[in-house]
C-alpha cells in the first residue's frame, strides 16, 4: 500500500500541495483528477521524489521513501510522462531495457523481457525491436513508454497525463490497453489526468484535487452520484454525469429474463452503449448475447442520483 501522510509542498511561500493524506490500495488504479495548477502533478512527483516534500511523508509498503537512495527508489517505481521522453538515440529495445540495464540484469534475460513486453503491447518484436523512436507513431511511442516503465516489474506505476498527446482514437486504444495490462499484471497505478472521462474510464478510485487539496477520494460511482463539493460537481459536468455513470457498468450485470426484438448487444458492452442503442433503434428493450434482455426502464433507473 502507498500511504501519503500530510504531504505539503511550498513554492515561494505558496503551498502547491497542501496537507494531503491519501491511501492508495494495492492492485488498483487511482486517478488524480483536477484542473491545471491543482497540484496533482506535484503530488505525483513527490512519490518518486522528483519533488521533495516541504513536510510530510510518503510510505511505500510501510517504508518511508525519504530514507532510500533516490535512484534506487525510482528504479522500483515505473514512471510515464506526457511527452513520453523516449531516448531518441536508443532503439525501442534499448529504451525498454533502460531500467533492467541499470539494475544489471543479464543480457539474455533483458532480451526476453523486452520481447515479452512488446508482445504485451501488441508490437511485433521482430518489427519493432530495432526501430528508432522517430520511426514510431505517437500511439506506438506511448506504448513503448509504458513498456519501458514496466520493464523491471515495478510494484507501482506513476503516470502523468500519459495520453495527453494522443488523438481521440489513439487515446481510447491506449486507455483500453492500459486497463488490460493492469488487469493482467495487477500493478498498482496512480494516474494524473485533467480529463474526468479518463478518470472514470480507468480509475478504480478517483481523487479530485483543487488548490493543492484533495476534495473527494472515492469510487467513481460515488463521485458521480454524490459529489462532495460544488467544484467536484462542476468538474463532472451536470450534462455528462448520467452517461459517465452508465459507462461504469456492463450490460452483463443488468440482464433480466425476457424476449426482445432486433439485433443483440454484447454482454461486455457498457450500459451507456445499451442506452445509445435503445435511443438510436427506438426500442424499449435489447436482447443480450447469450440470453436475456436489458430494458430502457432498467437503464433509466440506474442512471440517476443516489437516493437521499
Amino acid at each position, binding site marked *: 500500500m502507498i500511504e501519503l501522510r500530510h504531504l505539503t509542498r511550498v513554492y515561494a511561500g505558496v503551498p502547491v500541495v497542501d496537507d494531503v493524506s491519501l491511501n492508495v490500495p494495492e492492485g488498483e488504479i487511482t486517478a488524480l483528477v483536477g484542473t491545471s495548477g491543482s497540484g496533482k502533478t506535484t503530488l505525483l512527483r513527490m512519490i518518486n521524489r522528483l519533488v521533495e516534500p516541504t513536510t510530510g511523508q510518503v510510505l511505500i509498503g510501510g517504508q518511508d521513501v525519504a530514507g532510500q537512495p533516490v535512484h534506487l527508489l525510482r528504479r522500483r517505481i515505473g514512471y510515464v*510522462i506526457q511527452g513520453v521522453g523516449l*531516448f531518441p538515440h536508443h532503439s525501442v529495445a534499448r529504451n525498454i531495457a533502460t531500467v533492467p540495464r541499470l539494475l544489471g540484469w543479464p543480457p539474455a534475460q533483458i532480451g526476453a523481457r523486452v520481447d515479452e513486453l512488446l508482445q504485451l503491447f501488441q508490437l511485433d518484436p521482430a518489427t519493432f525491436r530495432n526501430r528508432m523512436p522517430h520511426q514510431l507513431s505517437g500511439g506506438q511511442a506511448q506504448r513503448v513508454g509504458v513498456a519501458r516503465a514496466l520493464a523491471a516489474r515495478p510494484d507501482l506505476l506513476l503516470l502523468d497525463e500519459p495520453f495527453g498527446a494522443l488523438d481521440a482514437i489513439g487515446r481510447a486504444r491506449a486507455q483500453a490497453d492500459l486497463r488490460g495490462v493492469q488487469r493482467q499484471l495487477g500493478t498498482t497505478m496512480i494516474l494524473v489526468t485533467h480529463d474526468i472521462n479518463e478518470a472514470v474510464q480507468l480509475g478504480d478510485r478517483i481523487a479530485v484535487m483543487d488548490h493543492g487539496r484533495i476534495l473527494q477520494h472515492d469510487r467513481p460511482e460515488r463521485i458521480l452520484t454524490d459529489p462532495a463539493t460544488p467544484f467536484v460537481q462542476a468538474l463532472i459536468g451536470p450534462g455528462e454525469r448520467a452517461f459517465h455513470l452508465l459507462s461504469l457498468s456492463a450490460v452483463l450485470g443488468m440482464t433480466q429474463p425476457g424476449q426482445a426484438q432486433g439485433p443483440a448487444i454484447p454482454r461486455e458492452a457498457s450500459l451507456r452503449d445499451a442506452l445509445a442503442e435503445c435511443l438510436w433503434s427506438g426500442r424499449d428493450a435489447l436482447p443480450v448475447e447469450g440470453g436475456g434482455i436489458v430494458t430502457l426502464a432498467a437503464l433509466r433507473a440506474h442512471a440517476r442520483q443516489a437516493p437521499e
Partner: protein
Amino acid sequence: MMSRPGVLFALLGIAGLFLPLVHLRPNRIVPGEGITLTAGFATGPLIAVGLAAILIAGCLGRWSPGLRTAAALLGLVGVISSLGLAAGHLLPKGNGLARVAPASGFWLLLAAFAFMLADGLTRLRPSVAASWLILAGVLVLAAALLGSGMLDQVSVMREYATRRGPFLAETQTHLALAFGSLGLALAVGLPLGVAIYLTARARGPVLTVLNIVQTIPSLALFGIMIPLLGWIATLPGADRLGVSGIGSFPALIALFLYALLPVVSNTLSGLQGVPLPVREAALGLGMTRGQLLAQVLIPLALPSLLAAVRIVLVQNIGLAVIAGLIGGGGFGTFVFQGLNQTAMDLVLLGALPTIALALLAGIVMDLLLGMSRGAQA
C-alpha cells in the same frame, strides 16, 4: 537550359585564360613579365582549348552532377599541370635565381574549376561513405601531383626545396599548436560547459568572460601573452613546466583561450537542446546524475560538440599563423619571413598549406558531423 553557376565559372575561367598564367622573374624579389597559358609552352594552346571547352560545356544545364564533378577535377589537374609545364619550359637552364611564379590567370582558373567542383559535389549529394572515398581520391591525386616532380620548378616549390627540413618542423609545430589548443580547450571546456549547464547562476559570468576573450584581436592577445607569461615564467618551477613568455607556449595559450568559447557555448547549447521529457524520463527511471550525463545528455549533445571541434579546428589552424609573429613557429614563420623579404613565394609556402589544412579539417569534420547526425537521426 543554361546552368547559371556554370556561366559564372566559365566567365571567371576564360578571363583567366587571357590573363598571365605565370610571372617570369629574374630573381625572387623583383617583378617580372606575365606570360599567358597559350604562350607558356608548346602544348599550352592545346590545353587552353581543352580548358575552355570544359568551361563552356559546363554552362549547359543538362550535364549530370557526376560528369560535372569529373570535368572539374580534370580541369583542376590541367591548370596545375600547366603551371608545372610552364615553369619547366620557361626557366632558363642552370639559372638558380630565376623564378616562375603563379599569376592572376592561374588563380582565376584554379578558382573557376574549384567552384565548379564544389558545385558538382553539392549537386551530386554523395553518401557519407562515398564522400570519404572522394576525399581520399582527391588527396591521392594531390599527393601524386606534388610527388611527380612536375611542379618542382614552380617558385613555391623552389622555396620548399631549399627549406625541406624547416618546413617539416614548422608543419609539426603548426599541427601541435592547432590540435594541442583544441585538446586543452576540450579538456577544460567540456567540464566547464557541463558545470554551467548544471548551475544556471554561473552561466552568465562564465560566458561573459569568454565572450570578452573572444573579442580581443588576435595580435593583441598574442602580444599580451608575452609579458604575462614572461612574468609567470619567472616564478620558481615554471620553466620546468615549459612556461615561457615567448615561443610556442604563449601561442598555445592564446589559441586555447580562443577555442574555449566555442567549446563551452556549444556544450551548453547541445545539453540545453536535449528535450525536457527525455531528461525527466531519465531521472524518473532512476538514472544517477552521472548516468544521465554519460548515457543521455552527452550522446545527444554530440553533434553540437563535434560542431564546436570543427569551428575550433578551422579557426585555430588559421590563427596559428599569427604564432609566427611571436616566435611560436608554424606556417606563420614562412609568411612573416616572406613579408619581411617581400618574397611572395615564401609567403605562399606558409599560406597555401595553411589553407589546405583548414579546408581538409573542415571537410573531415563535416563528414564526421554527418555521421553522428545520421547515427541518431
